[in-house]
């Protein structure tokens, strides 16, 4: 039997709700009967066989934020929880990519915001929830309070044969990983073969998306140098409050929308970043459904992306209709 293309191993399907992104990870060659071969190969290489599963990325809830343009507070976050719980296929885990809370210099207030975040997120009927901090969680105190609530800000774990890496590019106050974390990353990945499926999740983009809006990580190139030798790397991040896809070399980068307000497409926009104005008649505008199917059936290093965007209204966003709309993509 022809050996399966290692780059075609991880297939990711995503649906962005504006409330987050649902990913399904499963072997791309399932339909070709190569499952056993792939599973055996990965089982030997990283100790655990990859089995199909799905997970959801949520980002940028900014619990405690009460300024313009968004008067809805935590409503989108709470709606996201309801939507995730209504999924017919329960996700294995949630990845929350930072800015769980909005910053404040009043420690007691920030404590209350962290508690409120936990109160809402604990309603998620998902067995595993993982977080990384955003600068609004950790930028003012070096991440001390964040770690009290959520533990380490960078770590790694394995789930059903996929290696997940949480990177912290906010706690040093600057948009950077830092030498110590970079050394840890090198060591962590060194035990994996180049074919291992790896999902990196972090807050800021690891490349220069829009540096004058601080949409970058200053030592992101160093991170890329560490992960680029691996064939199946997906980077998930938040921070930019909009969905975005970039393919850099073999690495695919995906940003999730926020749970508070949206930023515009930076292309061609000069000057300071400004949130998209709130539309009271369409309070969830720009939080529309974005269905993405990514498969690795193309040539090594290439990628095939299918997008299905459906803008939500508040009515469509609620109740069973919203769930049905979310489920429009039959692949999910």
């Amino acid at each position, binding site marked *: 039997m022809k050996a399966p293309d290692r780059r075609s191993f991880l297939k990711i399907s995503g649906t962005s709700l504006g409330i987050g992104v649902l990913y399904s990870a499963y072997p791309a060659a399932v339909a070709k009967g190569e499952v056993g071969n792939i599973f055996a190969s990965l089982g030997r290489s990283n100790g655990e066989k990859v089995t199909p599963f799905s997970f959801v990325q949520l980002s940028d809830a900014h619990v405690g934020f009460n300024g313009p343009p968004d008067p809805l507070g935590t409503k989108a976050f709470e709606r996201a929880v309801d939507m995730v719980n209504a999924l017919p296929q329960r996700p294995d885990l949630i990845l929350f990519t930072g800015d769980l809370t909005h910053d404040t*210099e009043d420690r007691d207030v920030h404590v209350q915001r962290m508690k409120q975040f936990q109160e809402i997120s604990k309603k998620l009927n998902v067995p595993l929830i993982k977080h990384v901090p955003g600068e609004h969680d950790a930028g003012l105190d070096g991440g001390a309070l964040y770690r009290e609530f959520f533990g380490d800000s960078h770590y790694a774990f394995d789930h059903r044969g996929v290696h997940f890496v949480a990177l912290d590019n906010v706690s040093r106050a600057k948009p950077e990983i830092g030498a110590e974390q970079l050394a840890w990353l090198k060591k962590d990945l060194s035990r994996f073969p180049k074919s291992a499926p790896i999902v990196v999740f972090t807050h800021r983009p690891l490349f220069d998306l829009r540096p004058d809006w601080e949409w970058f990580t*200053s030592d992101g190139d160093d991170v890329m140098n560490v992960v680029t030798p691996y064939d199946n790397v997906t980077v998930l991040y938040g921070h930019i409050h909009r969905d975005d896809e970039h393919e850099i070399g073999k690495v695919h980068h995906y940003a999730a929308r926020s749970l508070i307000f949206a930023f515009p497409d930076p292309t061609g926009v000069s000057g300071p970043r400004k949130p998209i104005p709130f539309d009271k008649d369409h309070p969830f505008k720009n939080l529309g459904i974005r269905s993405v199917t990514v498969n690795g059936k193309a040539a090594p290093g290439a990628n095939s992306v299918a997008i299905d965007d459906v803008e939500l209204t508040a009515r469509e966003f609620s109740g069973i209709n919203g769930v049905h709309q979310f489920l429009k993509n039959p692949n999910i």
Partner: protein
Amino acid sequence: MTRTNCLRTVCATALPLVLAAFLTASSVRPAQADDVPVVEITAKRFAFSPDKITLKKGQTVKLRLHSEDVTHGFFLRPLKLDEEIPAGETAEVAVTPQTAGTFTTICDHFCGANHGNMNMTIVVE
């Protein structure tokens, strides 16, 4: 130890140190240091003042960055600027722009809610 011996000991120990310190300081600061233009920039949540400066390509200037409140950053990759301005303190950095253009320098040290739009413009002509 007599007072004379004590004085000799002090001189033998201290004078070389003073001389070394003088020479070190002289080597760090160029003889024409006073000829280098100085640009004063103040950082205060969530703006730089002035918010725009103009430099000449190839001409060295010294940027004197002062924070009036918390720690700020001063980052502009094309001009190789990556400074930290400690809270209430002043940092200095020399820059010799090699490329003409209009650049946006940002505060890259998180300083509060509106940190994301704390920036200024540097024009190089």
